[in-house]
């Protein structure tokens, strides 16, 4: 059996807890168990681990005593501990450090691979095109091919204006 958290090492720490008449089981490898502070069963709640509420403690730790507050919505780590939900989209940046290990424990990866809004995808494509054109321009200038350089410059200008005319919301 593999560890529930890292899904790599064999699970050696097996815990069962009964909370509100519901049995919860966790199987962890030694490394993850140590990281989660599982060696002290008295202070440890499986619910926290399973529901990811334990992350609130991690957020608190990274704050090293100073309470972090989301500049956009005023949400704090204490609020997260209470609600298990974040305050706004900006919170993901605000609490990114503490959230990473939480996300690792609950998801397949921590990089989004799915759908991307079309406008954003187009912006990304234009940016790549811009880079590509810039490289070609540099080459043309080095080769003193000024005719091509001039046409490339026009193309770059056009691409830039396309990028500028896109709604601001799509900048990643």
């Amino acid at each position, binding site marked *: 059996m593999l560890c529930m958290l890292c899904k790599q090492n064999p699970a050696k720490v097996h815990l069962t807890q009964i909370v509100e008449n519901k049995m919860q089981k966790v199987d962890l490898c030694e490394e993850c168990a140590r990281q989660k502070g599982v060696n002290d069963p008295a202070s440890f709640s499986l619910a926290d681990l399973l529901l*990811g509420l334990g*992350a609130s403690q991690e957020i608190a730790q990274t704050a090293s005593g100073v309470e972090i507050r989301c500049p*956009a*919505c005023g*949400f704090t780590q204490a*609020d997260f501990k209470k*609600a*298990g*939900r*974040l*305050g*706004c*989209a900006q919170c*993901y940046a605000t609490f990114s450090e503490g*959230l990473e290990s*939480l*996300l690792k424990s*609950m*998801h*397949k*990866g*921590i*990089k*989004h*691979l*799915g*759908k*991307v*809004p*079309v*406008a*954003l995808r187009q912006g*990304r494509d234009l940016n790549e095109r811009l880079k590509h054109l810039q490289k070609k321009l540099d080459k043309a200038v080095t080769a003193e091919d000024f005719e091509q350089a001039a046409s490339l410059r026009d193309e770059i200008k056009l691409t830039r204006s396309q990028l500028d005319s896109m*709604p601001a*919301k799509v900048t*990643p």
Partner: protein
Amino acid sequence: MNIYDFLSPPVETARRTGPHDRIVMSSRVRLARNLRGFAFPGWAKKNERVKALEIIRPAVECLPQLTGAFSETMDNLGPLDKQILVERHLISREHAAKSTGSGLVLNKEESLCVMINEEDHLRMQALRPGLQLRQAWMAMDQIDSELERKLDYAFSSELGYLTACPTNLGTGIRVSAMLHLPGLVLAEQITQIISSVNKLGLAVRGLYGEGTEALGNVFQVSNQMTLGEVETDIVERLNKVLLQIIEHEDNARNVLLEKKPKIVYNHVGRAYGILANAHSITSKETMNLLSLMRLGVDLGEFPPAERALIDELFVITQPAHLQKQFTGKLGAEERDLLRADMLRERLHHVSRPNPKTAAGGGPALDKRN
């Protein structure tokens, strides 16, 4: 317009069919989305929620797929109406608890349902009868792509769609199916199946989702991970697992019928006996017994046409639906009496289960799909 008048009558919804619908009652794909620059609904102040609703609602309403849809704010729906929507699996119990600043848009076919300001600004779901996850995903994807042109979604290229709860982060997708698994329950294999499904990173829940019990042998299977994987992979993985569960359920039924036919006939016969003759019955007992009668239909002990009746009874015997048919507030005990009356009347024409017509030598169980 009243939501109850808008919804298709249960006698019609019970006749909807789809692939593998003996075992897979319905398929669902849900997407969570939020607006940039607005606090998530659970943290936002009331006026901010109202503002978000005022932006989202018209954008959703004017989607071509939602022409002629039912659209209402949650404070304009009564508690009974909300409970009816929950019993139809169209909104979550959390959403039923919402009021000012939350809304609902539902299309006529009841195949698209958008909850506004539930846990996230947008919870959109595509629903299909039977096993149709791919179709549900395609419908959902299309709606989402149209909405993203009008709404400014909170999205990060690193973390994907940003959601109130980190468990929905990334794709914001929840793919699920409702399964009727009486065979696995009777064969006492269900715990084993649930634990192997859990090991694949999928969740198994009861009839009404998170934290509910599996009434009527109905289980909900869904993905748990939403980040680090492409939507179509999530859909395909669940689809594959569901096909395996269907096979296990079929096998369990076949083995039971072969090795312990008396146990199966006993369960079905007693279920029929109680449902058709009781004078007081709870909603919970009704569901569990209807589940066994449904199994009886699948096994050929009742005529196939009776399945629509059983599925209809599944819906109309639930508390809010029952209350809706009577004026005056009913207590739980009164409801139990009225429920029993209704069951006796509706099952009056159904003749006793006949093991001789059962599938032993007849057609294989769920092979028609």
